[in-house]
Each structure stands twice: as structure tokens, then as C-alpha cells.
């Protein structure tokens, strides 16, 4: 079975909120959406609670994951299940971690996984939509514009 997902890199939580708002209006199934953000050790206590509350209101569950080589990640939505499943049976590369494995399971290529890890470490936020091909295409139509690139992955 083909795996399909699309990933959008945003600069701030406000951008993510706006994007999820658009998806809500377009009646997309938000159970298929996830958000990943980097939590700086220094401001984790200041931002974490408010960010978690905001995102929990938008989507569903929130979890914190420590990923070696990257740091603490705040993960919201469907991605939590994939990241909790561990590294079994998936060989992503030399430096596999739960984030890389979850992205790989969603159909993201190894090169793009590295790109997303770099984006997260640069304090960017990822909005991921993992669904059937037609639903992913629909989300792309809603979110993709000249100012905001959506990347579609098939595997």
C-alpha cells in the first residue's frame, strides 16, 4: 500500500494555528495531522505550557520526546503513536531515531528526513498530514501557495 503524506515547515506557532484554521474550514480530518516543534532547554518552562495548551486545543494529545542528536521535541497528534512504536524493523540510516523512523513510516525519503531534522533544530515547526493520496492532495490545495511551500511524499 502506498504511503502518502505532506509536510509544511512554518516559522512560528501563529502560522501553524492559521494553517490548522484553514484546514478546519476546508473540513479536513485533523486526526490525520501532526505538529512537531523543538523545545529549547532554556525556555522550555516558559513556552512549553502555553504552546502545549494552544496545540492541544487545535489538535489532540501532546507528548514530549527526547531524541538523541536533536533534543526535546514537542509532538502533537497522530505522530505520537508512530514515534512511540520505537525503532523495530525500520532501518533509516546510521543515526536512526524515533523521529526519523516515524517520518520514514509516513513515506518521507531519507534525504528529506535530514532536511526536516535541520529545520526543527533551527526552531521551525513542522505540520504533517498523513492520509490517503486524495486527502493529501486536498490538504496541499488548501495550504500550498507562493509564500508557503508544501512538500508531498509518496512511498
Amino acid at each position, binding site marked *: 500500500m*502506498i504511503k502518502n503524506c505532506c509536510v509544511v515547515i512554518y516559522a512560528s506557532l501563529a502560522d501553524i494555528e492559521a494553517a490548522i484554521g484553514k484546514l478546519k474550514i476546508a473540513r479536513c480530518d485533523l486526526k490525520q495531522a501532526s505538529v512537531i516543534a523543538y523545545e529549547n532547554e532554556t525556555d522550555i518552562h516558559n513556552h512549553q505550557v502555553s504552546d502545549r495548551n494552544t496545540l492541544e486545543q487545535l489538535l489532540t494529545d501532546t507528548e514530549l520526546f527526547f531524541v538523541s542528536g536533536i533534543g526535546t521535541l514537542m509532538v502533537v497528534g497522530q505522530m505520537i503513536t508512530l514515534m512511540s512504536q520505537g525503532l523495530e524493523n525500520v532501518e533509516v540510516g546510521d543515526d536512526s531515531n524515533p523521529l526519523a523512523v516515524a517520518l520514514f513510516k509516513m513515506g518521507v*525519503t531519507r534525504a*528529506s528526513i535530514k532536511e526536516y531534522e535541520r529545520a526543527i533544530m533551527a526552531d521551525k515547526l513542522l505540520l504533517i498530514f498523513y492520509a490517503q*493520496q486524495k486527502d493529501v492532495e486536498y490538504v496541499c490545495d488548501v495550504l500550498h501557495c507562493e509564500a508557503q511551500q508544501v*512538500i*508531498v*511524499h*509518496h512511498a
Partner: protein
Amino acid sequence: MKTDPVYFNHCKNVLFQSPLFEGLAEKVLDDMLQLFRRDTWRRGVQLDPQIFQQRFYLVIDGRLEVMRINPTTGRSITLYILGPGDGIDMVTLLNTNPHEVIPVALDDVSLISVPIVDARNWIDQHPEFNRKFLPYLGEQIRKMEDLASDLALHDTISRLARLILRHIIPNYSDKSDGVHQLKLIHDLHDESLARMVGSVRQVVNRHLQHWRKQGILHKKKFHMEVTELESLRDYADEAKHQVERKTSTN
């Protein structure tokens, strides 16, 4: 796409080296790239052919094998191997008739895509692109002609020799040992090569082994190189002589 300047510039570099876009004004290419979005396909993925009636794709990194399959027998033939700068199913830009092509990713592939309607509109608005587009289509038709005539006129060993010769990188032989590098097909499995010449893996494997023993081909770390170009040409021409002999006797 300008929001990601690194990838934007990478796309421009790749496309400017492709026969489809080389020499095109930078501004025209910039305008075109604004319409596109990024896609990736993991190695082995085979999408529903319907998508090629809706979106037009350009390959940026990696290779794709474009096939047709007989659903009853499972037999397949490879029509094209596409690489960076190539468009998938260019025919859809010309007409809307549905047709079956099955692109399969040979590597992890990075692409850019645009709704087919937008691609057609863009071509209408940029007649200067046609100066590149039409010769590119001409080249594709020529490749189909070569494939059809190879299948009809030549035996398997000549077809295989001709396939390899068509993929030699021009002006890229190592002067010290005369080794010729291949593009796109250098690391393909025998099964994939067999699909390109309308044969089966066992036959292709036998011919390749024979050429390796003769020192015509060399395989180093799954990378095929041509070491004796003239001998390979002889194998490719052999069938041509047979056809000439046949026609002269008729």
C-alpha cells in the same frame, strides 16, 4: 518555491542542464518554478497512473523507469528511463486523452509538480519555451522509433549492445584506459535491462557475462563501464548487416 532558496537554486541548476530548459531566459524559468510544488517518491513506488492526468512532474534528482505492463501476462516493457531535468509523460501536455504509463522510482526521487492545466496555460503564454519543447519531444519520438525498430529488426544481443551504446556519456572517456561511463543505466539490475530490450533476465545476464569475459564490459561495485567500445559497436552493427543482407536477398 522561492521560500526555499537552496532548493529553488538547485532546481534551476538541474533544469538549465536539461535539453528541455537549457538556454531559456532565467526570468522565464523563475516564473515557471513559482507554479511548482516539491514532491518525493521513495525507491520502488508506483503511483496510480490517474495522477499523471492531473499533474505534470519534472524529475530533479534520481531516476524513474516508465513502463507499460500487460495486466494478463504480467509482461512489461520499459519505454524510457528518465533522469534529472526530464518530464514525466510529456504527451499529457499536448492532449487530454487518457493513456497508461507506469512510472516506477528506481532511486529515491525528488520531483517538482504542477497541475496539468497550469502547465498547459504556462506553455500557451510562453511561446519561447516551444523552441526547446518541440525538439525535446522530437528526441522522445526518436527514442520510441529506436525502441520499436530494435524490437522488430534486431536480435537480443544487438538490442542490448545498442541500448548500452545509446547510454554512453559523450566526451567522457577516461583517456588513460579508454573506459566509457554510462548514464542512467550504469547500475541497473539485469531484470531492468531486460525490460528495456524486450527480453528476460537470464538472456541478458548471459550476454553481459559473455561481454565481461571478452573484456568489452567491466563491472566495478555494481557500476557497469564499457572498456572495448569498438567491439560493442560490432555487436550492435551485426544485426544491421543481417537486416541489410535479408533486404538484399528479398
